[in-house]
């Protein structure tokens, strides 16, 4: 399928070809145009310019109900006056192609897969948020439409439920029967879902490709910023002989890291992921850049600790596995591995990205890091 839309307000013209039968994540902040795009795909809105094709057939003008799509919203949308069973059955009944018995079986089967078989004869209003969303999913799956659209389906659930349902998505969509488009604001969610990712920002399609690739080789600063949580550390720099000068006397030595690069010149932006920065470790090799910093806040996300720092280079964020305590204002040293550096040119285009494996630091350090990540500091 290939789509090409331009809706003046919400979306700038672009061309996007979804991998058939795969899962595509639309990643972007709120107002990035994800919902607009989904609505266009569904046919709820009509593009102000351009056309939409499904399997080679132009569906631009086709009425929603004649299209082969299913959609799940972030609000839990069900028919309040129908029982769960009737809700799930309704698209099947309407298609008119199935015998009542067959419908009955399909409903049962879906309910089992989504673990709501217990509530089939209740009204959606009587269920918890998570269960309501399961019902909505079941109804969407019932059609087994060739295009399945999900608009931030988990955003209104608390995070444990999100984890649970997200894992189920992976199995539910593994079949590859239908093309799934999943809109989210969370980079983490995109990574967990895998598949392909399309990064949207302010109505522009910035990059589209396999999720891991988009993550590890962002085309531009905008992509890197949109597809990093915690936000990637971005530091203005200028090219010098042995690497790049970050100002305030800090120079990152890139000679070891990137021989295979055209000579750098002029103004650059250095990008380092929070996970690639390290705190106060004895065994840093010589080429590591050591940056003095003060702790502004240690955010604990359960499995990781994000340490927000103030440094001569501006605000930095460091990610550490496990739960760690830092006093506000505590001073620490940050170690930056040249091998983990992203470089963007003056126009914001990516000129160098570290090899994926490398982002955690020099190989000889791996054991050390994993040992260290085992908590004690």
């Amino acid at each position: 399928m290939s789509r090409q839309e331009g809706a003046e307000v919400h979306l700038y013209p672009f061309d996007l070809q979804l991998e058939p039968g795969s899962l595509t994540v639309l990643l972007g902040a709120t107002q990035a145009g994800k919902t607009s795009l989904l609505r266009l795909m569904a046919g709820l809105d009509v593009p102000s310019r351009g056309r939409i094709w499904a399997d080679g057939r132009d569906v631009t003008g086709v009425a929603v109900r004649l299209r082969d799509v299913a959609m799940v919203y972030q609000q839990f949308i069900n028919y309040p006056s129908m029982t769960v069973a009737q809700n799930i059955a309704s698209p099947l009944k309407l298609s008119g192609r199935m015998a009542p018995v067959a419908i009955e079986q399909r409903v049962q089967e879906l309910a089992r897969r989504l673990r709501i078989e217990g509530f089939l004869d209740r009204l959606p209003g009587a269920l918890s948020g998570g269960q309501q969303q399961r019902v909505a999913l079941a109804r969407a799956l019932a059609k087994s439409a060739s295009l399945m659209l999900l608009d931030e389906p988990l955003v209104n659930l608390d995070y444990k439920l999100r984890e649970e349902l997200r894992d189920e998505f992976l199995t539910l969509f593994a079949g590859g029967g239908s093309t799934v488009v999943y809109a989210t604001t969370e980079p983490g969610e995109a990574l967990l879902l895998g598949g392909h990712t399309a990064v949207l920002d302010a109505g522009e399609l910035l990059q589209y490709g396999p999720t891991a690739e988009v993550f590890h080789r962002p085309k531009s600063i905008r992509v890197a910023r949109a597809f990093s949580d915690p936000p990637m550390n971005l530091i203005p720099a200028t090219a010098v002989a042995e690497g790049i000068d970050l100002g305030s006397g800090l120079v990152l030595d890139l000679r070891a890291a990137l021989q295979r690069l055209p000579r750098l010149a002029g103004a650059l932006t250095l990008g380092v992921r929070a996970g690639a920065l390290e705190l106060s470790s004895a065994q840093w090799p010589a080429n590591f850049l050591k940056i003095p910093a003060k702790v502004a806040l240690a955010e604990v996300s359960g499995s990781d600790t994000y340490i927000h720092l103030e440094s001569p280079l501006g605000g930095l964020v460091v990610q550490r596995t496990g739960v760690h305590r830092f006093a506000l204002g505590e001073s620490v040293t940050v170690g930056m591995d040249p091998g983990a550096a992203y470089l963007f040119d003056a126009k914001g285009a990516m000129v160098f990205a570290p090899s994926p494996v490398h982002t955690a630091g020099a190989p000889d350090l791996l054991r050390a890091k994993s040992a260290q990540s085992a908590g004690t500091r």
Partner: protein
Amino acid sequence: MKEARWRSPFLIAYLVFALLPIYWMVNMSFRTNEDILSSFSVFPKHFTWANYAVILTDPAWYSGYVNSLIYVAINMVISVTVALPAAYAFSRYRFLGDRHVFFWLLTNRMTPPAIFLLPFFQLYSTVGLMDTHLAVALAHLVFNVPLAVWILEGFMSGIPREIDETAYIDGYTFPRFFLTIFLPLIKAGIGVTAFFCFMFSWVELLLARTLTSVDAKPIVATMTRTVSASGMDWAVLAAAGVLTIVPGAIVIWFIRHYIAKGFAMGRV
């Protein structure tokens, strides 16, 4: 919030003020005219059903009620049925001149019936609708349809548009969606709307009286004419009055839970 001291006394005081006049009429409706005029008393001494008997047996009287109920019913049905799709359109879509149409509808709710009096008289005479239930029902549409659209629009806007979209995606046609899914969702709204249509059509006198003479003469008109004609039969008049309150009281009891909601949108 905690109950404040002044509340209950004030409430009771008001209720007395609200109910006393009504009670007085009820009281009189159970007395004979002579009794009323001769002696003054706060409760019926010689209790009698006679006045009600008069009304329920004399066709001139009870046909009045029947007529009123007929045109109120017709009006209610028409108002709600035409208002439903319109309200949906206003609550869901933007279209050329929507705001202006809505405003224009509201102006009709606000126009004094007196203004329409004359032209209605002419118009209905020419199309030969004079003195029919339909005439009054149609006349009352002037203020009831805008009202119905207004109230329903409020209720419909409270229902997420995603439900409509999901339905269309599931393959519902508009009519089927509207009847099987949407209407059940706004039951309350329809109830409230019907109530207000009933109320405003039931209480209106001016048009009802002007557009009818004999066959469709509403109770309200019957009463005023009795007043002007045969001296003052207070007792019967009171009984008639009491009977006009009954239907309203019944209706309001049924939708009491929705009233507040209906008013909540200030759509009255």
